[in-house]
């Protein structure tokens, strides 16, 4: 009886709780009273809400961002009645959405060349973690990662699942330009730079594949909720796979 009750409670959609972060930023999170505040329960709710808001096209919303604890909705305060907008968003979030709007998670194997010529910071990571370079690569490739959400840079996935042993602080002075596809470790996180840009993560390898194509129907390879593994390749394979040298 109690079990059934708990099951029912778990299937109830969480209530959205709204907070104005500024005059144009509305953050929404699952209300803490009917929700366990951990990533495993929060992230799927936020992912569903994000899909609903993208699908509903509510006028007055100009941008959406996914984070660990909330979605941040940027509004145009000059053109909407904020109170009415919150009502509209609340309705949209509490309406059930056909499942096709929320894409099923995919599994990605991302080839990475850990050859020293593509891994300027691999030795620093090895030194910091007191592992051999080969052991760093081994641990990085046996782990399985989850895309918690996208942000920071076009197509960049925040990955969870980096083995604790590999955590290494960011560079003291960020690099002015990191080439497309570089794989880095920054604190307890790892990720792939989807385009050339400045950055402060320790670069331990480089992937030849393209994670972001602004002209594609789905510009990003990674989507929230997807699973990721890194597969080690050698320098020859890197060059062969690098079909479109975009940088």
């Amino acid at each position: 009886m109690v079990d059934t009750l708990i099951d029912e409670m778990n299937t109830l959609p969480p209530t959205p709780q709204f907070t104005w972060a500024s005059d144009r930023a509305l953050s929404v999170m699952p209300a803490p009273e009917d929700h366990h505040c951990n990533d495993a329960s929060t992230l799927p709710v936020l992912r569903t809400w994000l899909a609903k808001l993208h699908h509903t096209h509510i006028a007055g919303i100009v941008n959406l961002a996914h984070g660990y604890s909330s979605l941040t909705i940027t509004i145009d305060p000059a053109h909407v009645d904020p109170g009415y907008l919150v009502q509209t968003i609340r309705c949209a979030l509490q309406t059930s959405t056909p499942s096709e709007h929320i894409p099923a998670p995919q599994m990605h194997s991302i080839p990475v060349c850990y050859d020293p010529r593509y891994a300027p910071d691999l030795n620093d990571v090895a030194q910091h973690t007191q592992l051999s370079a080969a052991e760093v690569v081994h641990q990085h490739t046996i782990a399985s990662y989850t895309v918690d959400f996208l942000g920071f840079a076009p197509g960049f996935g925040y990955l969870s699942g980096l083995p604790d042993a590999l955590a290494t602080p960011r560079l003291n002075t960020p690099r002015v330009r990191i080439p497309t596809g570089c794989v880095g470790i920054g604190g307890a996180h790892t990720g792939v730079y989807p385009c050339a840009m400045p950055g402060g993560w320790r670069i331990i390898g480089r992937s030849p594949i393209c994670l972001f194509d602004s002209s594609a129907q789905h510009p990003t390879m990674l989507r929230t909720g997807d699973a990721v593994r890194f597969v080690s390749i050698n320098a020859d394979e890197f060059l062969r796979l690098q079909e479109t040298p975009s940088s």
Partner: protein
Amino acid sequence: MSTITIISPGQLASVQDLGRKMQGSIGVSMSGAADAMSLRLGNRLIGNHDDAAALEMTFTGASLRCDETVRIILTGAPAPQARIMPMGTPVPMWRPFTLDASAELHIGPLTSGVRTYMCPAGGITTPTVLGSRSTHIATGLGSTTGAACAPGDHLPIGSPATNPSIETSSKHLLALIRELNRRTFRVVRSPHATTFSGEIWSQFIEKEWEISRHSDRIGTRLDGLHLSNFAANMRTDGACIGAIQVPPNGQPIVLGVDSAPTGGYPIIASVIAADMSAFAQRRPNEGIHFEEITIQQAQHVARQHEQQLDHAVSLHADAAHHATSLNGVTSIDLNADMAERGMAHIKEDVALLDHVTSINVACGQHAGDEPTARAIIQRALQQHCAIGAHPSYPDRTHFGRKQLDMSPAAIEECIHKQLLWLMRIVADEGGSLRHVKPHGALYHSAHTDSNIATAIGSAVHRVNPRLILIGGAGSRALAHWRAMRLRVASEGFADRAYEPDGTLRARTHHDALITTPSIAGKQAASIACGGEVRAHDGSRVVLTCETICIHSDTPNALAIARAVRSSLLARGVHITPIQCSHESA
């Protein structure tokens, strides 16, 4: 199509419009003009839509030429040495001027501000990337050449609007330009503010801060004090433009237009949306202050600021009077054709009544019959919908969609009869007729044939000269009826695709009808709030309307009506029967 060639970009020049919307959740920054107010004013003053792309220049202006004569306006930070070469003719700020094909524009250093916008009439028309032409400087996203403009870059220019009518009020315009010199920026306290002590908050508000030299479109660093906080390590969450982040070293950073959509540092406060344009014009070493207001006050300021912009410069694409603005609130009418499918479909018609404010009742000639008309009129009167007639060519076989070979006199008689027929029914039910909207081929032929427009106008005038005649926005019929001293209202469509010239895409094309509710909703919002639609090829069509039509016979009509209504309400648009502001006498 003409092309601007960059001879020298100055210190940093890039193509910017109002930014890339709805891409934050894939990690893409909004970008766009850092001083959006100067871009929007420039666009309006040169006859462009607000979102047209311009060249944003930083600290020093560009030198450029165009292969054809082009109209240009410079807005934003003053460029006192801007000249047209080789003659050395000085060019003004905030006023359009002509750049001949043989001449060069040298903009030179910028003073008392950071950013100047060069807005060409027609806008810069580099390809859009994820819905915008803006350049994200750090990744080069949106730029054809990879990042900021370089010498030799070619920027295509669109065709300018034909005869835009631009209304300006120099009083309001000057006030907005002066506003760009603001040194005290209004902020709202962040929910993270609890991670800072009360003492830190007081320091933040009382301190005179200096703009750091280490500032760019991603963020503006503030010199003066290092603020300690209790939670240097926060988890990554969304971060909006204007947010003031405090990283572990305590030096505040005001997030700019190119900032990432997510951030991991605590936010102490946010500069309000209405003050960000002026903030983008503050030079390194300039002193600034912050002043706290509430979120509600800030949102009110945003609306006031927008009204001030509309008072300063508003753009009308044609002679048609545009979106009715009563007491600063945009209002629009929603209309639907009714009683076209008999009693069998009356339920669907009645359901639509919840979403529209005017109905056009079929008068029996292309469709319709007395019982259906009566039933729907009864319900409409209960719901305070305005009732109009929907006369047509007498052709039930083709549903009035085929142009018949009738003399103007015969057309006038035929319409006159239809109006009398419907007026009697409306009167029986205790109401009165408010407007007339010709149906199908008659609606279209009134645009192409002035004799037919006259015939329609005469028929209406004979039954009641105070009736409002509805015609397509931009249609020649409207001008014709106005000349006959009739009251008119211009109409746009939420559920029909447009051609680039502003006419409706013919029903013979597979994409003539918009059947996706959310798209119809967006199109209606774009008509009501932006005065424009996207044609089926993506080009922009200026469309000023007092009423928006939702077809009752479109698949999905009810869902479309719902989406249109909620989309308009969400933008603060007041949905109300036609407010006829332009009576002829």
